Protein backbone atom coordinates (compact mmCIF):
# COMPACT_ATOMS: atom_id res chain seq x y z
CA UNK A 1 0.00 0.00 0.00
CA UNK A 2 2.75 2.45 0.99
CA UNK A 3 4.66 1.63 -2.14
CA UNK A 4 1.69 2.35 -4.39
CA UNK A 5 1.15 5.70 -2.68
CA UNK A 6 4.81 6.67 -3.05
CA UNK A 7 4.90 5.63 -6.70
CA UNK A 8 1.81 7.59 -7.61
CA UNK A 9 3.11 10.69 -5.79
CA UNK A 10 6.46 10.46 -7.55
CA UNK A 11 4.80 10.06 -10.92
CA UNK A 12 2.54 13.00 -10.21
CA UNK A 13 5.67 15.05 -9.53
CA UNK A 14 6.90 14.07 -12.97
CA UNK A 15 9.47 11.44 -12.09
CA UNK A 16 10.09 8.04 -13.62
CA UNK A 17 9.90 5.31 -11.04
CA UNK A 18 11.16 1.75 -10.72
CA UNK A 19 10.11 -0.37 -7.77
CA UNK A 20 12.16 -2.90 -5.81
CA UNK A 21 10.44 -5.07 -3.22
CA UNK A 22 13.26 -5.24 -0.68
CA UNK A 23 16.85 -4.18 -0.06
CA UNK A 24 18.32 -7.05 -2.03
CA UNK A 25 16.17 -6.27 -5.05
CA UNK A 26 17.11 -2.60 -4.71
CA UNK A 27 20.82 -3.39 -4.87
CA UNK A 28 20.26 -5.52 -7.95
CA UNK A 29 18.29 -2.77 -9.68
CA UNK A 30 21.04 -0.28 -8.85
CA UNK A 31 23.58 -2.59 -10.52
CA UNK A 32 21.69 -2.66 -13.76
CA UNK A 33 20.20 0.80 -14.17
CA UNK A 34 21.21 4.30 -13.34
CA UNK A 35 19.08 6.45 -11.06
CA UNK A 36 19.04 10.04 -9.79
CA UNK A 37 17.87 9.12 -6.30
CA UNK A 38 16.61 6.26 -4.13
CA UNK A 39 13.65 6.39 -1.75
CA UNK A 40 14.59 3.67 0.72
CA UNK A 41 12.16 2.17 3.18
CA UNK A 42 13.92 1.33 6.43
CA UNK A 43 11.81 -1.71 7.33
CA UNK A 44 11.98 -4.37 4.66
CA UNK A 45 12.33 -8.16 4.53
CA UNK A 46 15.62 -9.93 3.58
CA UNK A 47 17.81 -6.82 3.58
CA UNK A 48 16.48 -3.72 5.34
CA UNK A 49 17.06 -0.12 4.25
CA UNK A 50 19.99 0.49 6.57
CA UNK A 51 21.84 -2.62 5.43
CA UNK A 52 21.09 -1.96 1.77
CA UNK A 53 22.36 1.62 2.02
CA UNK A 54 25.55 0.52 3.79
CA UNK A 55 26.18 -1.99 1.04
CA UNK A 56 25.46 0.62 -1.65
CA UNK A 57 27.92 3.06 -0.08
CA UNK A 58 30.56 0.30 0.11
CA UNK A 59 30.13 -0.43 -3.59
CA UNK A 60 30.25 3.26 -4.49
CA UNK A 61 33.58 3.70 -2.72
CA UNK A 62 34.88 7.15 -3.54
CA UNK A 63 32.80 7.39 -6.72
CA UNK A 64 29.58 9.25 -7.33
CA UNK A 65 27.31 9.29 -4.30
CA UNK A 66 23.70 8.52 -5.13
CA UNK A 67 21.23 10.45 -2.95
CA UNK A 68 19.39 8.01 -0.67
CA UNK A 69 16.29 9.28 1.12
CA UNK A 70 15.05 7.15 3.98
CA UNK A 71 11.38 6.41 4.54
CA UNK A 72 10.84 5.72 8.18
CA UNK A 73 7.77 5.02 10.28
CA UNK A 74 9.17 7.13 13.09
CA UNK A 75 10.07 10.78 13.24
CA UNK A 76 12.38 10.75 16.22
CA UNK A 77 15.80 12.33 16.32
CA UNK A 78 17.33 8.93 17.06
CA UNK A 79 15.81 7.52 13.86
CA UNK A 80 17.22 10.35 11.86
CA UNK A 81 20.68 9.73 13.31
CA UNK A 82 20.39 6.06 12.55
CA UNK A 83 19.55 6.79 8.91
CA UNK A 84 22.44 9.20 8.48
CA UNK A 85 24.80 6.77 10.19
CA UNK A 86 23.85 4.10 7.65
CA UNK A 87 24.87 6.48 4.85
CA UNK A 88 21.48 7.87 3.93
CA UNK A 89 21.32 11.54 3.01
CA UNK A 90 17.89 12.61 4.16
CA UNK A 91 14.75 11.12 5.57
CA UNK A 92 10.99 11.33 5.30
CA UNK A 93 8.60 9.99 7.90
CA UNK A 94 5.44 8.11 7.08
CA UNK A 95 2.69 8.77 6.24
CA UNK A 96 4.26 10.34 3.20
CA UNK A 97 3.00 13.79 2.23
CA UNK A 98 3.45 15.00 -1.32
CA UNK A 99 4.71 18.46 -0.28
CA UNK A 100 7.41 17.02 1.96
CA UNK A 101 8.38 14.57 -0.78
CA UNK A 102 8.69 17.34 -3.33
CA UNK A 103 10.78 19.55 -1.04
CA UNK A 104 13.12 16.73 -0.13
CA UNK A 105 13.61 15.64 -3.74
CA UNK A 106 14.27 19.25 -4.76
CA UNK A 107 17.15 19.27 -2.32
CA UNK A 108 18.78 16.21 -3.83
CA UNK A 109 17.85 16.00 -7.49
CA UNK A 110 19.65 18.00 -10.15
CA UNK A 111 17.33 20.71 -11.51
CA UNK A 112 15.35 19.10 -14.30
CA UNK A 113 14.57 20.59 -17.69
CA UNK A 114 12.17 23.50 -17.45
CA UNK A 115 13.00 24.21 -13.81
CA UNK A 116 13.90 27.75 -14.75
CA UNK A 117 10.58 28.52 -16.36
CA UNK A 118 7.51 30.23 -14.96
CA UNK A 119 5.07 27.32 -15.12
CA UNK A 120 2.09 29.43 -14.14
CA UNK A 121 2.53 31.90 -16.97
CA UNK A 122 3.27 29.15 -19.51
CA UNK A 123 0.17 27.28 -18.44
CA UNK A 124 -1.86 30.43 -19.06
CA UNK A 125 -0.33 30.78 -22.51
CA UNK A 126 -0.83 27.08 -23.11
CA UNK A 127 -3.90 27.42 -25.31
CA UNK A 128 -2.11 29.86 -27.60
CA UNK A 129 1.03 28.14 -28.91
CA UNK A 130 1.41 30.73 -31.68
CA UNK A 131 1.50 33.59 -29.22
CA UNK A 132 4.14 31.81 -27.18
CA UNK A 133 6.21 31.21 -30.32
CA UNK A 134 5.92 34.92 -31.14
CA UNK A 135 6.94 35.95 -27.66
CA UNK A 136 9.92 33.62 -27.66
CA UNK A 137 11.10 35.00 -30.99
CA UNK A 138 10.80 38.61 -29.79
CA UNK A 139 12.52 37.69 -26.55
CA UNK A 140 15.38 35.98 -28.42
CA UNK A 141 16.04 39.25 -30.24
CA UNK A 142 15.75 41.35 -27.08
CA UNK A 143 18.00 38.98 -25.16
CA UNK A 144 20.61 39.14 -27.90
CA UNK A 145 20.51 42.95 -27.95
CA UNK A 146 20.46 43.09 -24.16
CA UNK A 147 23.53 40.88 -23.77
CA UNK A 148 25.37 42.98 -26.34
CA UNK A 149 24.48 46.23 -24.59
CA UNK A 150 25.39 44.77 -21.25
CA UNK A 151 28.79 43.54 -22.45
CA UNK A 152 29.50 46.94 -23.96
CA UNK A 153 28.45 48.75 -20.77
CA UNK A 154 30.53 46.50 -18.55
CA UNK A 155 33.53 46.83 -20.79
CA UNK A 156 33.25 50.61 -20.58
CA UNK A 157 32.74 50.39 -16.81
CA UNK A 158 29.37 52.13 -17.22
CA UNK A 159 27.40 50.66 -14.30
CA UNK A 160 24.33 52.77 -15.03
CA UNK A 161 24.02 51.53 -18.60
CA UNK A 162 24.58 47.97 -17.35
CA UNK A 163 21.77 48.42 -14.85
CA UNK A 164 19.41 49.65 -17.56
CA UNK A 165 20.28 46.77 -19.90
CA UNK A 166 19.81 44.18 -17.13
CA UNK A 167 16.55 45.78 -16.11
CA UNK A 168 15.11 45.72 -19.59
CA UNK A 169 16.13 42.13 -20.18
CA UNK A 170 14.56 41.21 -16.85
CA UNK A 171 11.21 42.67 -17.89
CA UNK A 172 11.24 40.89 -21.23
CA UNK A 173 12.32 37.58 -19.65
CA UNK A 174 9.58 37.66 -17.04
CA UNK A 175 7.09 38.37 -19.82
CA UNK A 176 8.01 35.18 -21.66
CA UNK A 177 8.23 33.03 -18.54
CA UNK A 178 12.04 32.83 -18.42
CA UNK A 179 12.11 33.38 -14.68
CA UNK A 180 15.60 31.92 -14.25
CA UNK A 181 17.00 34.58 -16.57
CA UNK A 182 14.92 37.19 -14.75
CA UNK A 183 16.53 36.19 -11.45
CA UNK A 184 20.08 36.53 -12.81
CA UNK A 185 19.17 39.89 -14.38
CA UNK A 186 17.83 41.10 -11.07
CA UNK A 187 21.02 40.18 -9.27
CA UNK A 188 23.09 41.86 -11.97
CA UNK A 189 20.89 44.94 -11.83
CA UNK A 190 21.36 45.13 -8.07
CA UNK A 191 25.14 44.85 -8.32
CA UNK A 192 25.27 47.45 -11.07
CA UNK A 193 23.06 49.80 -9.05
CA UNK A 194 25.58 49.53 -6.23
CA UNK A 195 28.25 50.53 -8.72
CA UNK A 196 29.98 47.17 -8.37
CA UNK A 197 30.94 46.73 -12.02
CA UNK A 198 33.46 43.99 -11.21
CA UNK A 199 30.88 41.76 -9.51
CA UNK A 200 28.39 42.50 -12.28
CA UNK A 201 30.98 41.50 -14.89
CA UNK A 202 31.61 38.26 -13.04
CA UNK A 203 27.93 37.43 -13.30
CA UNK A 204 27.66 38.17 -17.03
CA UNK A 205 28.73 34.69 -18.23
CA UNK A 206 26.07 33.13 -16.02
CA UNK A 207 23.46 35.37 -17.59
CA UNK A 208 24.53 34.23 -21.02
CA UNK A 209 24.23 30.59 -19.99
CA UNK A 210 20.83 31.23 -18.44
CA UNK A 211 19.63 32.84 -21.68
CA UNK A 212 20.84 29.90 -23.74
CA UNK A 213 19.27 27.27 -21.54
CA UNK A 214 16.00 29.22 -21.31
CA UNK A 215 15.94 29.54 -25.10
CA UNK A 216 16.35 25.78 -25.38
CA UNK A 217 13.68 25.06 -22.79
CA UNK A 218 11.24 27.53 -24.30
CA UNK A 219 11.66 25.94 -27.72
CA UNK A 220 10.89 22.56 -26.16
CA UNK A 221 7.88 24.05 -24.43
CA UNK A 222 6.58 25.35 -27.76
CA UNK A 223 6.87 21.96 -29.41
CA UNK A 224 5.16 20.33 -26.43
CA UNK A 225 2.30 22.80 -26.58
CA UNK A 226 2.02 22.55 -30.34
CA UNK A 227 1.87 18.77 -30.03
CA UNK A 228 -0.92 18.84 -27.48
CA UNK A 229 -2.92 21.65 -29.09
Amino acid at each position, binding site marked *: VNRTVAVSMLEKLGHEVDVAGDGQAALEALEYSSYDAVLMDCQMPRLDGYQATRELRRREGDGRRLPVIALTAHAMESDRRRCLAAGMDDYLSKPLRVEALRETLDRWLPPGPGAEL*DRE*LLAELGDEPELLA*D*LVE*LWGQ*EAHDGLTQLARALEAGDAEAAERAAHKLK*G*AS*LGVGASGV*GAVCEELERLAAQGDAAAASALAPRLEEAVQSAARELREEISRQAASA
Partner: protein
Amino acid sequence: VRVLVVDDSAVVRRLVTARLEADGHEVAEASDGMEGLEAALADPPDLVVLDRSMPRMDGFEVCTRLRENPATADVAILMLTDSSGEQSLAEGIDRGADDFMSKPFSPRELSLRVQLLGTRRTAR
Protein backbone atom coordinates in the same frame (compact mmCIF):
# COMPACT_ATOMS: atom_id res chain seq x y z
CA VAL B 1 -12.08 50.00 -24.30
CA ARG B 2 -9.35 51.90 -26.17
CA VAL B 3 -6.00 51.03 -24.67
CA LEU B 4 -2.48 52.41 -25.16
CA VAL B 5 0.34 50.06 -24.10
CA VAL B 6 3.61 51.80 -23.23
CA ASP B 7 6.58 49.51 -22.54
CA ASP B 8 10.12 49.41 -23.91
CA SER B 9 10.07 45.62 -24.19
CA ALA B 10 8.54 44.21 -27.37
CA VAL B 11 7.84 40.97 -25.50
CA VAL B 12 5.74 42.72 -22.86
CA ARG B 13 3.90 44.79 -25.48
CA ARG B 14 3.07 41.69 -27.50
CA LEU B 15 1.89 39.83 -24.39
CA VAL B 16 -0.37 42.67 -23.25
CA THR B 17 -1.69 43.50 -26.71
CA ALA B 18 -2.50 39.89 -27.59
CA ARG B 19 -4.48 39.44 -24.41
CA LEU B 20 -6.38 42.70 -24.63
CA GLU B 21 -7.19 42.32 -28.32
CA ALA B 22 -8.50 38.84 -27.60
CA ASP B 23 -10.81 40.51 -25.06
CA GLY B 24 -12.11 42.80 -27.80
CA HIS B 25 -10.27 45.99 -26.83
CA GLU B 26 -8.72 48.36 -29.31
CA VAL B 27 -4.99 48.50 -28.63
CA ALA B 28 -2.18 50.86 -29.71
CA GLU B 29 1.46 50.58 -28.66
CA ALA B 30 4.35 52.90 -27.83
CA SER B 31 7.90 51.77 -27.10
CA ASP B 32 9.08 54.38 -24.62
CA GLY B 33 7.73 57.07 -22.33
CA MET B 34 8.15 59.99 -24.71
CA GLU B 35 6.47 58.18 -27.57
CA GLY B 36 3.72 57.05 -25.21
CA LEU B 37 3.03 60.57 -23.97
CA GLU B 38 2.88 61.93 -27.51
CA ALA B 39 0.52 59.16 -28.63
CA ALA B 40 -1.76 59.68 -25.62
CA LEU B 41 -1.95 63.45 -26.12
CA ALA B 42 -2.54 63.14 -29.87
CA ASP B 43 -5.38 60.66 -29.47
CA PRO B 44 -6.43 60.15 -25.83
CA PRO B 45 -7.27 56.50 -25.05
CA ASP B 46 -9.58 55.29 -22.26
CA LEU B 47 -6.75 53.50 -20.52
CA VAL B 48 -2.95 53.46 -20.53
CA VAL B 49 -0.96 50.38 -19.52
CA LEU B 50 2.27 52.03 -18.46
CA ASP B 51 5.64 50.48 -17.64
CA ARG B 52 7.45 52.10 -14.75
CA SER B 53 11.05 52.08 -16.00
CA MET B 54 11.71 53.15 -19.55
CA PRO B 55 14.36 55.12 -21.45
CA ARG B 56 13.84 58.77 -22.37
CA MET B 57 10.90 59.26 -20.00
CA ASP B 58 9.94 56.90 -17.20
CA GLY B 59 6.41 55.85 -16.32
CA PHE B 60 6.10 58.17 -13.34
CA GLU B 61 6.91 61.18 -15.45
CA VAL B 62 4.44 60.10 -18.13
CA CYS B 63 1.83 59.75 -15.40
CA THR B 64 2.39 63.28 -14.14
CA ARG B 65 2.27 64.76 -17.64
CA LEU B 66 -0.94 62.91 -18.49
CA ARG B 67 -2.64 64.19 -15.34
CA GLU B 68 -1.48 67.75 -16.02
CA ASN B 69 -3.04 67.85 -19.45
CA PRO B 70 -6.83 68.38 -19.57
CA ALA B 71 -7.11 66.07 -22.60
CA THR B 72 -5.73 63.12 -20.67
CA ALA B 73 -6.38 64.06 -17.03
CA ASP B 74 -9.15 61.46 -16.74
CA VAL B 75 -7.48 58.60 -18.56
CA ALA B 76 -7.24 55.40 -16.49
CA ILE B 77 -3.63 54.44 -15.77
CA LEU B 78 -2.53 50.91 -14.94
CA MET B 79 1.16 50.85 -14.04
CA LEU B 80 3.43 47.85 -14.51
CA THR B 81 6.08 47.84 -11.82
CA ASP B 82 8.89 45.35 -11.45
CA SER B 83 8.59 44.84 -7.75
CA SER B 84 5.67 45.02 -5.41
CA GLY B 85 7.76 47.44 -3.34
CA GLU B 86 5.78 49.95 -1.31
CA GLN B 87 7.97 52.75 -2.50
CA SER B 88 7.02 52.51 -6.14
CA LEU B 89 3.41 52.00 -5.13
CA ALA B 90 3.48 55.19 -3.06
CA GLU B 91 5.14 57.16 -5.82
CA GLY B 92 2.74 55.79 -8.44
CA ILE B 93 -0.27 56.77 -6.36
CA ASP B 94 1.25 60.17 -5.79
CA ARG B 95 1.68 60.62 -9.54
CA GLY B 96 -1.93 59.69 -10.20
CA ALA B 97 -1.88 56.04 -11.30
CA ASP B 98 -5.15 54.14 -10.73
CA ASP B 99 -3.90 50.58 -10.43
CA PHE B 100 -0.71 48.54 -10.36
CA MET B 101 0.56 45.14 -11.40
CA SER B 102 4.02 43.87 -10.67
CA LYS B 103 6.00 41.80 -13.17
CA PRO B 104 5.69 38.92 -13.76
CA PHE B 105 1.96 39.39 -14.08
CA SER B 106 -0.74 36.98 -15.10
CA PRO B 107 -2.38 37.89 -18.44
CA ARG B 108 -5.69 36.71 -17.04
CA GLU B 109 -5.40 39.14 -14.13
CA LEU B 110 -4.43 41.93 -16.50
CA SER B 111 -7.55 41.20 -18.46
CA LEU B 112 -9.75 41.55 -15.38
CA ARG B 113 -8.13 44.73 -14.16
CA VAL B 114 -8.44 46.37 -17.57
CA GLN B 115 -12.08 45.39 -17.69
CA LEU B 116 -12.69 46.91 -14.27
CA LEU B 117 -10.80 50.13 -14.92
CA GLY B 118 -12.19 50.47 -18.45
CA THR B 119 -15.85 50.05 -17.59
CA ARG B 120 -15.57 52.56 -14.74
CA ARG B 121 -13.91 55.04 -17.02
CA THR B 122 -16.26 54.70 -19.98
CA ALA B 123 -19.30 54.93 -17.64
CA ARG B 124 -18.37 58.48 -16.70
